[in-house]
């Protein structure tokens, strides 16, 4: 009989736990349905040379690669740029770029000024390929395994924290799978 008075308390505690979990989630991070799917097919002109193309097949390297969606108008991209430069310098992983809804001259000027961490960038002027990748907030970074499957999507600027805690272990895991 006395335990009945505990029911509201149990409800309340349950609610608090739900709120704690719910408020800790980032509503801007929408999980991508593309995880574990093959990369969307595309063929785009390269940023540096419009006569050459960058295709989805180029991302199937046998080893993990990153595809970083960026634009010269995107301020948050400036934030992660030094980190990408560091990655390129360390040569730990190949980084491709998807230049999203940008002007070629602006994008090239930026890379010239701040450095170019990408082995190649695809030039997605109208953002049509970006839609196929489910891009909704630049910068976004996709981790692609050797078979050309998307294994992880990072939304927002890459940080050392996310790299160490999430991406690096995943890269190690994917590389271990192949052995």
């Amino acid at each position, binding site marked *: 009989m006395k335990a009945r008075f505990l029911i509201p308390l149990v409800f309340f505690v349950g609610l608090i736990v739900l709120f704690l979990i719910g408020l800790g989630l980032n509503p801007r991070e929408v*999980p991508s*349905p593309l995880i574990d799917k093959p990369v969307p097919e595309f063929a785009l002109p390269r940023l540096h040379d419009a006569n050459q193309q960058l295709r989805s097949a180029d991302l199937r390297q046998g080893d993990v690669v990153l595809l970083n969606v960026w634009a010269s108008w995107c301020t*948050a991209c400036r934030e992660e740029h030094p980190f990408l430069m560091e990655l390129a310098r360390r040569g730990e992983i190949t980084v491709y770029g998807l230049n999203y*809804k940008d002007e070629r001259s602006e994008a090239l000027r930026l890379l010239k000024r701040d450095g170019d961490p990408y082995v190649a960038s695809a030039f997605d002027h109208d953002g049509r390929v970006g*839609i196929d990748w*489910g891009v*909704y907030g630049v910068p976004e970074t996709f981790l692609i395994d050797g078979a050309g499957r998307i294994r992880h999507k990072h939304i927002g600027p890459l940080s050392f924290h996310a790299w160490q805690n999430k991406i690096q272990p995943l890269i190690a895991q994917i590389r271990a799978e192949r052995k």
Partner: protein
Amino acid sequence: MTRLILAMLLSVCTGFAAAAIDAYPFDSPEKEAMFQRLSQELRCLVCQNQNLADSNAELAQDLRREIYRMVAAGQDERAVIDFMVARYGDFVLYRPAVNTTTYVLWIGPFALLVLGAATLLIMIRNRAAADGDRELSAEERQHLQSLLNTAREEGPHP
């Protein structure tokens, strides 16, 4: 920094709250109606509480253009919705599909309503049983009578 970004996003989202108007030519009123319906039922992922019809974010414009292309090419509603879900997930749907992950979402409110109604009903019944009009037992009646008698003998209290 994040505050600044949020503030800027907000200003982008609410700056031109008036519904976006694109001059898309349709060859039939049915297709136009389908386009309107779809852009009202799909969420803009940049301004998350706006649908594609209301949002003027760049992505919303691009996605409306994509919907227009598909509708004008004679594709049906299902095809457009599948296209969006394949790229952006169930989150783009203002009316998410009923599946194992959305059962709680769809059934939860009704389950809570039934639970609440049942609890209320039980409580009301219990209370009615506890303090409802009940005949006094013979013993109680006797006790009452004796109390009344003593009161009468002692006379009114000062």
